[in-house]
């Protein structure tokens, strides 16, 4: 093996890669979306949009925080047109970083409730999920439960399952509780809940539900759509657990996924059109029907037997921006309360 041959062998892939790294020029007709969601409902949404308008959609998917860092770092060079992310906390963070441009239209303002969009139109909610309790029907009576406080009730010592405090859903819940109850009461609640754990936080929401089904714990804190998904899945059996709506003060915690026009968008008008499409009846149906989330627009009708069976609930009308802004405090409180 000669010197030159070895050198060539090493350089060749670099040349190839250098050529490849010239990113394809997106045509004028392509809408670029950065999303931290990866659900079937979203893919159906993109397809439906392309079909309705003829505009191609290019999607980049990445986890919420990574996505924010990436958009910040890219700056002007590869801007998305639309940013979609899950959870008020991330929407707030993205907003703080100046990633959104203000947008508004009659359609958006009329269809999306005020608590589900940014006051200056930086982002609009497109779907929502509720954080609920699931309980074992044979070991717990619904009458014993009084809102989120039940998780802290000493009678449930060693019977509670929840995922780790690092998870965004838990953080947002505590943020809301801090805003409603004040820091002291919220921290007290968190440390009592942690004291009631049947096991160290592990796994995701579905794993908490399975733990209740298996009898490892009797009460768990989860997002409603994981339960609905399992109820609709023939491979899972959740017949012995039930959802409890924690409506007691302050009301059921509802979190949103939202979309906004990106600050440096190359096609801001097209981006606005996409968001308007996302809150249309046709698109909103996709969320409950394909992911079992709730639509952002309250008037939309859909076909989902499990959601219908769960019925209506009293939501905490706290707005997304307030929830998002207290994220850091919430994680701090979790650390101090000993919820790993």
């Amino acid at each position, binding site marked *: 093996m000669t010197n030159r041959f070895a050198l060539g062998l090493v350089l060749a*892939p670099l040349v190839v*890669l*250098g050529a*490849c790294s010239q990113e394809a020029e997106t045509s004028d007709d392509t809408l670029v979306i950065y999303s931290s969601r990866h659900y079937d409902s979203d893919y159906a949404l993109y397809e439906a949009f392309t079909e309705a308008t003829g505009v191609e959609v*290019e999607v980049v998917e990445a986890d919420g925080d990574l996505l924010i860092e*990436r958009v910040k770092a890219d700056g002007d060079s590869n801007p998305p047109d639309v940013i979609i992310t899950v959870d008020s906390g991330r929407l707030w963070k993205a907003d703080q970083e100046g990633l959104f441009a203000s947008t508004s239209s009659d359609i958006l303002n009329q269809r999306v409730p005020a608590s589900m969009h940014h006051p200056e139109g930086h982002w609009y909610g497109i779907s929502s999920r509720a954080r609920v309790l699931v309980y074992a029907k044979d070991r717990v009576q619904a009458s014993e439960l009084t809102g989120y406080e039940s998780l802290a009730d000493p009678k449930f010592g060693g019977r509670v399952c929840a995922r*780790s405090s690092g998870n965004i859903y838990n953080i947002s819940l505590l943020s809301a509780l801090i805003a409603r109850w004040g820091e002291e009461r919220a921290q007290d609640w968190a440390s009592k809940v942690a004291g009631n754990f049947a096991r160290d936080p592990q796994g995701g929401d579905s*794993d908490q539900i399975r733990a209740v089904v298996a009898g490892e714990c009797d009460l768990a804190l989860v997002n409603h759509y994981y339960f609905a998904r399992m109820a609709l899945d023939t491979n899972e059996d959740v017949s012995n657990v039930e959802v409890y709506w924690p409506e007691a003060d302050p009301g059921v915690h509802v979190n949103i996924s939202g979309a906004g026009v990106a600050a440096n968008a190359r096609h801001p008008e097209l981006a606005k059109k996409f968001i308007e499409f996302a809150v249309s009846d046709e698109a909103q149906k996709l969320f409950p029907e394909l992911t079992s989330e709730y639509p952002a627009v309250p008037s939309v009708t859909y076909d989902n037997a499990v959601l219908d069976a769960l019925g209506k609930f009293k939501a905490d009308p706290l707005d997304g921006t307030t929830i998002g802004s207290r994220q850091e405090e919430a*994680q701090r409180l979790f*650390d101090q309360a000993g919820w790993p």
Partner: protein
Amino acid sequence: MAAVTNSIGNRAAFAAGGNLRRLDPAVVGTVLASFFALPIIALIALALSGDSEYLDHIASTRLAEFSIKSTKLAIMSGALAALIGVSCAWLVTRYDFAGRRALSWLLILPLAMPGYVAAYSWYAITAPGSKFEAASGWDLPTVSGISGAAFIFALTLYPYVYLLSHNAMEAHGRLSWDIARSLGAGPWRAFRQITLPLIWPAAAAGTALVIMEVLADYGVADFLGVSTLTVGIVRAWSSFSDPAAAAQLAVLLLFGALLALGAERTARGRRQFASTGASDTQLSPRSQLTGWRSAVVAGLAMLPIALGLLIPAGNLAWLAINTRPSDSVLPALQGTLLLAIGSAALAVFLGLTAAYVLRSGNRVARASVRVLQAGYAVPGAVAAIAILSALAIGQSVLNALSGAQAAILTGGGIIALLLAYQSRFAAVAILPSEAALMKVRPELDEAARSLGASPMRVVTKIHLPLVLTGLATAGLLVAIEVMKELPATMILRPFSLDTLAVTAHNYASDERLAQAALPALILIAICVPATALLNLVRPNA
């Protein structure tokens, strides 16, 4: 004595008077290290740019817990992986039994299983309410917490120790073993006093890789509920929105990794092992095993493969059968292959150069390469952020110099991603190259030089053929690591490039293990031939 001769020989080889192709190892080492250590430098800069508010909060609440858990996990996983790796290497070298040939390379395969995939799969099999437990009636202990995580790490990372130990045992073990036995030593004593010291550097190098991989991991620890320093780092970044705080903890982690590396070097001592030069025919035959003994040993050797690869993959296959595949799988496959091949080529070049730098014995050069290797312990997400910062700085320097605003360097892109991979996986490229280079006798250098060969010719004509297997190992290992890599890929990839790891993770993290199954299986399926290739580039059994 060998060490002294070696460094003299090298200094002579490298700094030949009057020869224009003078490669001062200190310069080469420093240039190499600073280029690839740029992310680490950026990391430190990022850490220093923040205040200590987060550190104060964490120190009073969870820092001790994070550090203790990280250390415990690293030690448990390393010890278990070393135990499995060395014992399997020994079984396969010392004895001949039914299926030995196949098992000797099959044992490398669990490397193809990404840790986070194994964690999701094993948890699904053993968690309360799992379908497997319902169907079989067995009540398996749940794979969770520190012991669960150590189990997963040991089973998916032991191939590092196995591979390096096996190479070493094949090269040195059998001849010396026989000599010891003929002198009357019992099998255990012969192993302990002869074989173990000979393979110690290789086994230690493999264990160091395992420990650094464990320190950098986020997915396994987070999912199984172990609060490690890396989990704390990612939380600092996501929950506290404080990249500087994340960088501060990451620097702490880096110290830990440097300590681990330092400990490995000290344990290894200043020993350098040149080949004895014995030809194959002089190596004694293996001990033949028959009947039930053969079956037991074969079963033992099979166990790590089953636990580390077959069972978790089998569970995924079962899930995948009942699930509709998504469209993103094929493009993801292309992306994965592209990145792997490019990275492997770069890694070979890097590994070889760095190994030479190390061999030169120059202290500055060695220190810089050590720091470079410690990059392996930096979590991928943090490395990516550091790279983005480094590129941003580089871009502003470029803008200042050229007066233009062409955004060549900023943002993501393949170059940034490859840079991130190299800084993360330098250790994986360097350690096998170094181990291979150690096999080259120093006397060869001197002989060649005295015959008038230039330093470069010494490299290409003499060293290269001898260390080819080590280089190929380095390239393949990096390719496999890159194929499995997750967080840096997610942050830095160009938006048109998807990988199997990212696709699988997105589904699994959304608790849709069934949809994650297919991309995960394809990932394993392409890693498997790559790991099998590792066998082909070993010295012949």
